[in-house]
């Protein structure tokens, strides 16, 4: 059985619409936050698209003061958020957070090539 084929395009549209899509592996149960063609744990190609919770706890974070070319801001926070059984990376907006703090998806940002990233805020 082949995956129902969650693509980056579909994932991106969902982010822009305030939703986070992930994939659940019916064979080993692992849940992924970024779309793949097969399960990175067991190789199953039968991955199922699932809606991830949009609120969760900060798994790790950092504040970046030396940005890459193309990013105008400085001192922005990048977070990895535990959302149910999956984790997702995003940008934090608003008050700074630490590991364990609760955050929720609040928006998205788009880079110079049109790729989107989720934006979270403390709740």
């Amino acid at each position: 059985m082949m995956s129902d084929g969650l693509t980056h395009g579909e994932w991106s549209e969902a982010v822009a619409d305030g939703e986070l899509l992930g994939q659940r592996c019916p064979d080993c149960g692992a849940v992924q936050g970024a779309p793949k063609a097969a399960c990175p744990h067991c190789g199953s190609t039968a991955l199922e698209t699932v809606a991830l919770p949009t609120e969760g706890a900060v798994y790790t974070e950092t504040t970046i003061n030396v940005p890459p070319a193309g990013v105008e801001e400085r001192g922005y926070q990048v977070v990895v958020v535990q959302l149910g059984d999956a984790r997702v990376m995003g940008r934090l907006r608003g008050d700074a957070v630490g590991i364990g703090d609760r955050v929720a998806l609040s928006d998205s940002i788009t880079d110079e090539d049109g790729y989107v990233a989720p934006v979270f805020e403390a709740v």
Partner: protein
Amino acid sequence: MARAAVVGAGMTKFGVHDKPLQELFAEAALTALEDAGVAPPEIEAFYFGNAMGGQTENDTHLGPKLATHVGMAGIPVQRFEDACATSSNAFKNAVEAVEGGHHDVVLVGGVERCTPKTGKDTAEMTRIFGSASHRQYEQPTGLTFPGVFALFTKRHMHEHGTTERHLAEVAVKNHGNGSLNEKAHFGKSTSVEEVLDSPVVADPFRLMDCCPFSDGASAVVVVSDDLADSYDAAVDVAGVGHGTDIVPLADKETPHVTIAARNAASEAYEQADTTADAIDFAEVHDCFTGAEVLASEALGLVADGEGGPAAADGTTARDGEIPINASGGLKAKGHPIGATGTGQIVELTQQIRGDAGTHQLDGVERGAAHNLGGDAATTIVTVMEGR
């Protein structure tokens, strides 16, 4: 029986070099050949690492260009790119080629120019280094490479109580080591206070927690085990382990555990029929101070959670129980991306021979090199021993 042997080693000083890649590489390659007592036409194949010449100076297909420059046009040449693990991967493939009987005597090496002085500015280089993170699921957040290792290190601090002072102690140790190594980018010692006073790049990392952008080259001559005894100063390649992990990093099971390094180390130790306890010294990939902490633990050189305290209490000092980065490491020796992996092999070779000069360790017989790429999703661990 060894998998292969290194019979010649050479490297440039890591630092700022305002010359074309082929001239920088030739300096390391001709030194390695001379060290081995091998003339260019005796080399049967060339395994070459360069990570970003296309991005930094519109220079690709460098394998044949460099082979031509050092008198080896005609032989099979292959270029590898696996981010910061680029030339270790070239080395692994070279070891397999001589072990598999495809070649007897090969050259392995890498070169890179990363300094803003000889190329692009810091923001542009930060973007180029960022190309190793996931284009769709990481780069759009504004993530940088100090940021990648900051995310791992923050979690490690949370779980194990590692402190910013522990991280600073890694920088102090490696700067001290680098001050003894004439090939090092940085020749000055530093202090915990100086590190903690430097500006924050990506917390918890300050400027002094980060390795520099370096220019440099390194090269080694690798021969089959059968042939090794006919060279003056062969050092055995006892094991080479190669692991990978999930990208993007949010999908890794436990990012700060760096499972690729643990798998690569187990594989290398098993091939070498040894254990972490029997390793006399190690060169690990300390692109940031926190990366040395994770690597020391992943290689089993210190217990999990003890990477920070081990730097602070002298366990990993050059006169400690298990010297780590006696060369200065990436932190002080420098990090010319594509030259870093074979640079570690040069260091292991010279230390085991007793040839390391002003930064020679006492009586080391067996060393390990740990070189990672990207968010540690590529890691190669090599064990070398006196023959």
